[in-house]
């Protein structure tokens, strides 16, 4: 067995395969919740995994490697300062994660390891194996991974990639980590046939043809990098923002966090890090009270600079969007990437003065 192998996992072996994996690590997978909601969660049994789940709004790669609220260490005040580093990081497999989210995990791994290694992220990421699941069709209309080179299937970046071929999964091994979890379970895997590979090709082409949302991010990269987008456009966009920060919270790429020290009932303190957002005024407000990004428009501009300007592409190795569509479904208005890119492109061709001049709403 080697990295690069394309094998077959028959559906009647899936349960046994993951039961056996579960002895080694906990399984995180799409799980049925209340009234039709499906959310990634710890599953007690592989039989709970909802394979045909569409898409989870809560990015599993981010949530399980870089949680919303994460304890870093705890300490006590007083003469003897004792620091306990949080060490509760279980081995886990995220099963059924989509291609876009795998791409995002690789982006975050790169971010959190250069130039300084973030020990909290690294421990979690070292302990995590990604079983990605190819989208046989775009799970929802908001998806645009195809425009962002992040799906609906992957050429690389996965540990194991599964493609649903009906009664079987095509089982591709993409990394040493993937190989390590596959080798002990050889008895559940078998060789694939040419027919299987052909079927996989057919699924790829079919899936590619079904995307409804397009985002011509390449053009936006040019306009944003060259700072050509008029400020009026950013202010017009910002005037509709509800400042909920769901766009950055649920973006599987966004990495910003804040830290605070939380008092505990026993008198100790826990240093906790939690997601922060460039869409908040407090994110950049300086101690003097001055804010270099004082308006909503300036903060929306900031977000898209980080997503699409060349300086970040150079640093991060790709633009900061995987096309998962979560900014589309979670935004209370229309400040998602495809809509903003569309607005920017229109502005570059025919910037029309809006009917009422947008007010630059300050903090």
């Amino acid at each position, binding site marked *: 067995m080697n990295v690069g192998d394309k094998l077959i996992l028959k559906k009647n072996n899936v349960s046994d395969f993951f039961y056996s994996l579960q002895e080694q690590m906990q399984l995180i997978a799409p799980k049925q*919740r*209340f*009234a*039709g*909601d499906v*959310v990634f*969660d710890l599953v007690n049994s592989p039989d709970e995994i909802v394979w045909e789940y569409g898409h989870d*709004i*809560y990015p599993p790669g981010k*949530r399980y490697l870089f*949680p*919303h*609220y*994460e*304890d870093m260490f705890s300490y006590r005040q007083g003469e003897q300062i004792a620091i306990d580093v949080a060490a*509760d990081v279980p081995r886990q497999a995220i099963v059924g994660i989509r291609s876009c989210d795998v791409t995002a995990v690789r982006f975050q791994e790169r971010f959190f390891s250069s130039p300084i290694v973030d020990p909290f992220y690294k421990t979690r990421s070292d302990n995590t194996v990604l079983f990605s699941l190819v989208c046989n069709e775009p799970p929802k209309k908001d998806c645009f991974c195809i425009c962002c080179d992040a799906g609906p299937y992957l050429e690389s970046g996965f540990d194991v990639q599964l493609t649903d071929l009906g009664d079987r999964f095509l089982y591709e091994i993409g990394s040493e980590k993937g190989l390590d979890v596959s080798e002990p379970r050889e008895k559940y895997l078998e060789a694939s046939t040419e027919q299987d590979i052909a079927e996989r090709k057919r699924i790829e082409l079919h899936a590619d043809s079904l995307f409804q949302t397009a985002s011509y991010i390449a053009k936006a990269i040019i306009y944003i990098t060259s700072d050509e987008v008029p400020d009026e456009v950013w202010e*017009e966009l910002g*005037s*509709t923002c*509800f*400042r*909920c*920060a*769901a766009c950055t*919270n649920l973006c599987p790429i966004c990495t910003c966090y*804040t830290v*605070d020290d*939380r*008092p*505990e*009932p026993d008198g100790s303190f*826990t240093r*906790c890090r939690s997601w*922060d957002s460039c869409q*908040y*005024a*407090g994110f950049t*407000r300086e101690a003097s009270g001055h804010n270099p990004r004082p308006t909503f428009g300036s903060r929306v501009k900031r977000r898209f600079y980080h997503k699409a300007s060349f300086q970040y592409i150079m640093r991060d190795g790709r633009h900061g969007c995987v096309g998962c569509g979560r900014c589309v*479904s*979670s*935004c*209370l*208005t*229309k400040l998602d990437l495809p809509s903003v890119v569309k607005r920017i492109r229109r502005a570059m061709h025919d910037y029309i003065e*809006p009917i*009422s001049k*947008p*007010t630059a*709403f300050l*903090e």
Partner: protein
Amino acid sequence: MNDKPTTCGFCSCGCALYVEPRKSGLGISGLCPSTTHPVSTGRLCIKGWNATTSLIRVDRLQTPLVRKGNELQPASWEEALSVTADVLKRVISTSGSEAVGVIGSAKTTNEECYSLVKFARAVLRTPNIDGACRFYDASLIPALIDTIGIPASQIGVEQLAEAGSMLIAGANVMEQLAHIGSRIQDAVENGCKVVAVDPRKSRLAPQAGLFLHPKPGSDLTWVRALLKTILDRKLYVDAAPQMPGFEELRASLDDVVIGVLPQVCGIEPEAVVEAATILAENEPCVVMFGLGVLQQQDSTILVKALANVALLLGGYVMPLRGQNNAQGACDMGVLKDYLPGYEPISSVETRAKWESAWQCAINPQAGLSAIEMVQGGVKALLVFGENVALSAPNTEQTISALEKLDFLAVSDLYLTETAQLADVVFPACSFLEKDGTFTNIGRRVQRVRRVIDPIGESKSDLEVIVGLASAFGKEMATDPSAVMKEIAATVPLYANFSYEQFETGWGEPWRASTPTPRLAPIHATDLPPEEPDYPYQLLASRINFHTQTGTMSARCGILTREYPESVVEINPSDAEKLKLRPGRVVRVSSKTGSLTRRLAVSDAVPQGCVHVPHYFGGDSANMLAGYECDSISGVPVYKGLPVKIEAVS
């Protein structure tokens, strides 16, 4: 993460969310909205995303407190309950049950609200039970019962995007109720025409096809002109003339002179005609109004006038209530003049029904309002989940009246400004720590589920109420599902609800059997007199980042970082006239109080007005209000107050 979602408790939209408690210690490790819930649809607002952390903190009240000497000291539940029961018994035996008052919350569950009403009326036998809504929006109750027939929104949040037109008056809705704001944007995208009315240019501006900026206090004048225009131009629906009250309404508007609009309201007559045409031509029209309308001198009449607009145009009314269970608390009868289900206390049959349901005699006297209670109208006062020291008007006098009470007991999450004055403090659970139901702004009754264990020794208000009742020798149900069973059996609006049903979906809006709409006559009222010593008018608005008196939201790191300090805003030309620079500390004073804030200037604020965003991290705009109330509903006048502004040297 918990398998079952709960209902967010930070505003009336009522999103469903999953909360993941931290593995050990206090706090959460994550949360996410439900995608299938009709309001949240995979989205949350800034409070939903952040404020949950403000509920689970080490400074939560951990044990009951009992005042000994001058200090509140930790006590056992047994002691706190027995001290309270003993004092109440003594006050009742010496001064009668009318000397006891109870103020309920619009944040607690329906089951807690219902049990509180039952406790007050059937156990304490006091007529003085009223809710937090008296400080905010109670004026809509008599007004909407008399017009559309139900004191609630006629449509749900999820239906707003289909509106053809909207009239939105006196509400900072884009800031306060983000999910409704979002639906307004969706509606506009679908072609809906928005007529916004607010003295100040709010964040509705980008959505508003027409934005009217009337002078504060002049609302009845333009609404009457709007009604007159609709009638004169026959813009109403065909069914309108057959509606009861049509001719009386027409007659009551005989004295409307459109020509006075520029002088009285600062609005051109053509703008009112345009508004009427937009609303009539784009069906269905939704009439929404917020605290800007609900906290005025004649707010009940004003709400009736706005409801008439909806009735004449065949549209819908949606009052923009703020608190998570504002609707449910009123449905459950946390009101001085109604028993649960809006059954009037004045009616003999109603009282007979409830006397038999509760097996007690109900005091038929008209009770005191929450405003009258906090002014010292009672000797002993119980306050559940409302920080009356800040939410009541006339802060200084209110606090001194609360201090003078013989006895004050408070149930709350934190040692609030009110709790600090109390003789007994009960540590309450947050909505994350208890089971129950909330009723959202669209009347949807939905489950609240316990996702973490109660913090410290805290208990739900239901447990406190049951404990107090048992000290009086009365048995009351402790299990929320049993309470809901009793509600379903006694309150017809809730007849179809049960906990079994809530296990299969997102609940349902309650439905009134057959409300009979009726148009109300709208006579002119006197304009408030001018006060030469106080030449400016106060505009107070809700903000995105904080809710209520800040007991919860002001404890959230992200939210206080976003909004650490409130300001006073005036128009740049007024700043120039007063020779005040932005950043200067200024004092805004009224006849009853004053507050100091840093000054900001904004074109959004009209000349002659002072805008104070509501934030309670310090003093509040409520300090400026007196005890003047809308004469029908008893809601204090918080809006348009005459004030002056000066530099603090």
